[in-house]
């Protein structure tokens, strides 16, 4: 058993290293897309899969609407929030499947052989969480500029020191700018840390006592995966909303 913070490379395509997390990410994406194709024909009286999807969509949309207080804005933000939620949720829950840290390809020389597992949650890869954070934070800036205009949005960060709160306003602006970078970093490490820690925990428990002992931790990870997905998407939503609000000072 070897724990590495970086995702393990399974194989390379040309110059591109294909890691287990990337592969899982692609598999989850394809799985979601296949599930989507089942929604081709929508029936007025929902049944089965459509019913489940409708329930989730409606709950999520109502949540988004309650935060934005604006139906049009809710419709604009919903796709990003929902995609983050669904994708992060499923990739978090991947670690619950059997095979975590045990099924993989052997790696290393004789005497020191380690397993490179196939199964590793996409969220347990800094590359993914950083990419998602960057996408989110960039979307927040774009939403702010689209709602307020470039000049007005820029005034949130660059404040003239010769007006009412004088130098304080300028400093607050700089702090706002730094907090945008802080958002990215906290997004990245919150999700990564939680999921990666969960995976390590599960792997360690599995290696200590394979029977029964991992069970409570599996339940715990179900919650952690759900909560992290909710936290990420809700924070993204709140940031999107606050970016579209006009400057107060």
């Amino acid at each position, binding site marked *: 058993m070897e724990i590495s913070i970086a995702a393990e490379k399974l194989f390379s395509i040309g110059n591109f290293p294909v890691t287990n997390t990337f592969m899982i990410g692609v598999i989850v994406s394809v799985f979601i*897309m296949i599930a*989507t194709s089942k929604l081709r024909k929508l029936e007025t009286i929902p049944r089965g899969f459509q019913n489940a999807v409708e329930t989730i969509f409606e709950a999520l949309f109502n949540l988004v609407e309650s935060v934005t207080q604006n139906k049009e804005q809710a419709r604009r933000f919903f796709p990003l929030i929902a995609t983050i939620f669904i994708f992060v949720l499923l990739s978090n829950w991947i670690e619950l499947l059997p095979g975590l840290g045990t099924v993989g390809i052997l790696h290393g020389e004789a005497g020191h052989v380690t397993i490179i597992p196939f199964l590793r949650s996409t969220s347990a890869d800094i*590359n993914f969480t950083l990419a998602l954070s960057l*996408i989110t934070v960039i979307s927040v800036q774009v939403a702010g500029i689209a709602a307020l205009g470039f000049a007005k949005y820029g005034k949130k960060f660059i404040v003239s020191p010769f007006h009412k709160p004088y130098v304080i306003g300028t400093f607050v602006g700089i702090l706002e700018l730094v907090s945008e970078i802080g958002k990215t970093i906290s997004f990245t490490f919150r999700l990564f840390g939680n999921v990666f820690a969960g995976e390590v925990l599960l792997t360690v428990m599995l290696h200590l006592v394979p029977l029964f002992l991992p069970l409570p931790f599996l339940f715990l990870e179900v919650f952690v995966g759900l909560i992290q997905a909710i936290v990420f998407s809700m924070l993204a939503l709140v940031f999107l909303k606050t970016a579209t609000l006009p400057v107060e000072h």
Partner: protein
Amino acid sequence: MEILEKLGIDWKLLLAQAVNFIVLFFVLRRYAYKPMLDFLEKRSERIEQGIKDAEAAKGKLSEMEVKEKEVLSAARNEARDIVAAAEESAKRRDAERFAETESRVKSALEDAERKIAEEKRRIMDEAKSEIASLVSLSVEKVLQEKINATADKKIIIEQ
């Protein structure tokens, strides 16, 4: 930059993950969110419309009930009026007819009385003339026959 390496940050993988997510985002937006939200909105609109329709129908129904009551009471009043008018006219006609009959009976009676009187007079006249002729005839007979003196005397005395 060593820390990035230690954390496993690789710009190629970063980009690949971002592209993967963005592709998923656009596919879902095109094929899942938009149709689904449109569908849900349309359905909730339909349900709202249905509720509104039902409420409107209810309102109309109660309105109709009120109107129905009004119409019914109006009709009842009218019927009562008509019946009363009919009764009155029937009474009036009865009275008229009675009066007419009475007058006709009276006139018929008068007629009959007149006729009877006339007849009486005519009969009397006839009787009178007959009696007269009879008397004259008998007188003649008596006069023509040879009356004895006593008989003559008797007649003369009697006369």
